[in-house]
């Protein structure tokens, strides 16, 4: 019976935050040796909390943890390391100015002298064994997101972790990079290591894992063998009821030109072109999707339109309902916010919700004020209207919060996004810019956001959205603009385009760059 010992077994784990919030409610979970287990659940269902208890960040209030059949207490990340549990977080914990190898050995005990060549040889052996692609001498700041993730995984392996936990590892990867990651994970499984992967993407669950465990609202729902599961059966387990996976896409009604961008070029801090001669027109009453590998200029495009990013060349202009065209680029922020009321109101949901769109430590009322605090005469800010708006939003978008005076940073990811999108829509925009609207959101919240976007579209708003998930992008957009290296490599019809077609455009022009 020695073979049957589970790598990890959680029994009746309960974790509370404060008196009211129960993040995990007697959760049971087993991970076998040499398997890939997917941990699936909506946002706020307690997946990350559960995993944080395995990696020593939180300590369970109740319940038992068994590792390799023995009951253990994990009260610090060091305890977790000693048990061979390694977690790769969504946000990497690497030191930018050090090389990959230096990061990997950082904090490990060693001899008085350090023989870097030997260390690199050891690391290289690991890298080759599992089929990673990694240059040990490369500095972290020179690396792509996928390379950084590789460093994190190798770091855990080098430290002898045989139970790896990955928190949404594919959120930041391109489809090709995801495939590579999966291949490596399969190699590790073949080597007898256990892997837990937290993800939202059902097709990845089905493609990769052996078994799937589902959490819902902090409770353990069940575990199924992946071969017996389908996307709809998993969705049902996650949300408790059958939901249609189809996103609504109404036909655009009387589209009219609202935003014209021509020859737009932006430079980054190093003087490299982050946007290169970008031209397009956005129409009211349609959703224009923006596709591209992370860092292809999506952020700069949205920030240039909202005048947050300086423009090197080109113009951006708005057209009002009477066909009058006004250039908005190159004007001071104050000027725009005064003048744009008469031209076109631009709402913007940025990628970094708590770091740019909202202030995490402020309550909902104060966050509503961000856009409106200047209104009214005198030196005092009006807090009455923002509070009313906050209350309306809680009601309308069913935002889960103890009240308008709770700091928004304490809310779950989906609710934070509802606060942000709700505020931006309440400004009655003519142009709505949305970056990664459903990143990290559960299915229900995602659909609520899609519906809000469609609602705006029907009202005649020009919606421009950057979405990383091509399946979603193809379902919601009327047209799709593809960026690659800051250049527009194509604008395609969202109803007829295929994933392959867009995937090709996303990597077009990147070919000449050396690919190691």
């Amino acid at each position, binding site marked *: 019976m020695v073979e049957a010992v589970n790598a990890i077994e959680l029994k009746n784990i309960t974790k509370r935050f*404060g008196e009211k919030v129960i993040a995990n409610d007697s959760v049971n979970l087993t991970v076998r040796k040499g398997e890939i287990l997917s941990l699936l659940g909506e946002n706020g269902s307690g997946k990350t909390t559960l995993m944080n208890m395995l990696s020593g960040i939180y*300590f369970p209030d109740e319940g038992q943890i068994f590792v390799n059949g023995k*009951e253990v207490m994990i009260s610090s990340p060091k305890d977790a390391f000693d048990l061979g549990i390694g977690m790769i977080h969504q946000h990497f914990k690497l030191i930018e100015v050090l090389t990959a190898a230096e990061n990997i050995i950082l904090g490990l005990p060693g001899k008085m002298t350090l023989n870097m060549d030997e260390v690199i040889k050891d690391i290289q052996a690991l890298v080759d064994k599992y089929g990673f692609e990694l240059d040990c001498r490369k500095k972290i700041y020179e690396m792509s997101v996928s390379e950084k993730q590789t460093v994190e995984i190798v770091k855990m392996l080098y430290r002898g972790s045989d139970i790896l936990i990955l928190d949404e590892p594919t959120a930041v990867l391109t489809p090709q990079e995801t495939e590579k990651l999966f291949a490596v994970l399969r190699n590790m499984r073949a080597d007898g290591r256990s892997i837990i992967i937290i993800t939202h993407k059902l097709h990845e669950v089905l493609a990769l894992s052996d078994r799937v465990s589902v959490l819902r609202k902090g409770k353990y729902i069940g575990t199924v063998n992946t071969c017996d599961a389908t996307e709809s059966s998993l969705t049902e387990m996650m949300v408790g009821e059958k939901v249609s996976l189809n996103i609504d896409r109404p036909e655009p009604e009387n589209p009219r030109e609202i935003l014209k961008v021509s020859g737009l070029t932006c430079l980054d801090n190093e003087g490299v072109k982050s946007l290169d001669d970008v031209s397009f027109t956005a129409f009211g009453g349609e959703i224009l999707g923006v596709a591209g590998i992370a860092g292809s200029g999506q952020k700069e495009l949205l920030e240039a339109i909202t005048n947050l990013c300086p423009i090197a060349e080109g113009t951006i202009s708005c057209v009002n309902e009477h066909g009058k065209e006004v250039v908005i680029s190159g004007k001071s*922020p*104050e000027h725009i916010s005064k003048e744009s009321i008469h031209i076109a109101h631009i709402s913007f949901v940025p990628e970094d919700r708590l770091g740019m769109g909202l202030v995490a430590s402020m309550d909902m009322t104060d966050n509503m004020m961000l856009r409106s605090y200047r209104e009214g005469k005198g030196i005092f*800010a009006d807090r009455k209207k923002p509070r009313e708006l906050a209350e309306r939003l809680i009601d309308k978008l069913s935002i889960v919060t103890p009240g308008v005076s709770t700091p928004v940073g304490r809310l779950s990811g989906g609710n934070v996004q509802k606060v942000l999108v709700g505020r931006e829509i309440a400004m009655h925009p003519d142009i709505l810019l949305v970056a990664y609207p459903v990143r990290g959101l559960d299915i229900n919240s995602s659909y609520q956001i899609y519906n809000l976007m469609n609602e705006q579209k029907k009202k005649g708003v020009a919606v421009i959205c950057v979405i990383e998930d091509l399946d979603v992008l193809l379902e919601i957009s009327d047209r799709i603009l593809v960026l690659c290296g800051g250049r527009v490599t194509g604008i395609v019809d969202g109803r007829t385009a295929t994933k392959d077609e867009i995937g090709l455009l996303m990597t077009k022009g990147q070919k000449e760059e050396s690919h190691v």
Partner: protein
Amino acid sequence: MFKDSSLHIAARDSIVWWKAWLIRLIAVLLSLIVCAIVIFGLTKMNPVEVYKGIFSGAVGTSRRAWVTIRDTMVLLLIAIGLTPAFKMKFWNIGAEGQILVGGAATAALMIYAGDSLPTPVLMILMFVASMAAGVIWGVIPAIFKAYFNTNETLFTLMLNYVAMQIVTFCIVYWENPAGSNTVGIINSATRAGWLPELGGLTYGWNVVIVLVFTIGMYIYMKYSKQGYEVAVVGESQDTARYARINVKRTIIRTMGISGGICGIAGFLLVSGASHTISTSTAGGRGFTAIIVAWLSKFNAFVMILVSFFLVFMGKGAIQIASQFNLNENASDVITGIILFFILGSEFFIRYRIAFTKAHK
């Protein structure tokens, strides 16, 4: 026993206000007991007598009480001045210099215009001049921060020394009597430029000016549009840019306010208290006020209590030093112990400690 159970620290969601104050009160009581043990251990004296000495030194006579109040007010004003800068996460440790230039501007007017201007005009002039000097001293590092992203901590600290050198330079001109290397009491005969009494209270004006600023700052930070901008810039500059807040202007404006108020503290010190100027006019208050501001978590009204406590202990120290032939540091030890306990109690307010037993 200890192998089976372990200690866990968990963040509290929230705490009822009276519980928080109860924890603080317990901390103060505990600290007094520890102090008593330390006093007895070191000096073999009755701790109660020493406590009485401190009390009498701080508020034993009406004159002593007023001096304590006067110094409390100055410390409070500086802490109030630091508040907007710290809220903006602009680490202004240059209050010392801002006080000094404010004090120097006041002294200059007392010396050069003291006899020629009527008191109300002179007062207003000194008030404005000290504020202007503080504004300049505060705005210089702010401009460099806003446009070149220089480190404000080092910059404001260095400006303290520049201010000290300016005062040293002025003393050469204002020396009185010649050769003493001090300015002496300015206008000691005519009392020109001395902050007058208010309704028979020697330090009435000091109290009024500081309380007006305290209430004003409370309202400014809590209800004004500019106060809101300061809070947003302090939390996230990206969000501020997103909300179309002019970050550069906010930084410079806020440091102008911060420096200006510290400059006025210099006016109160020179015109309203010492009637002289030296490099030690600020006397470390610019740094002590940082402790006041943080201990009070920038709550203007808690600052009154904290400044009073610190000044109270300082005055008591002088008393026990002479009364019991103790070194003045004895009181620093007591203050240190009490502060240690008060700061430590914040940990218990923010976190809950629980013992967990492992199941076997």
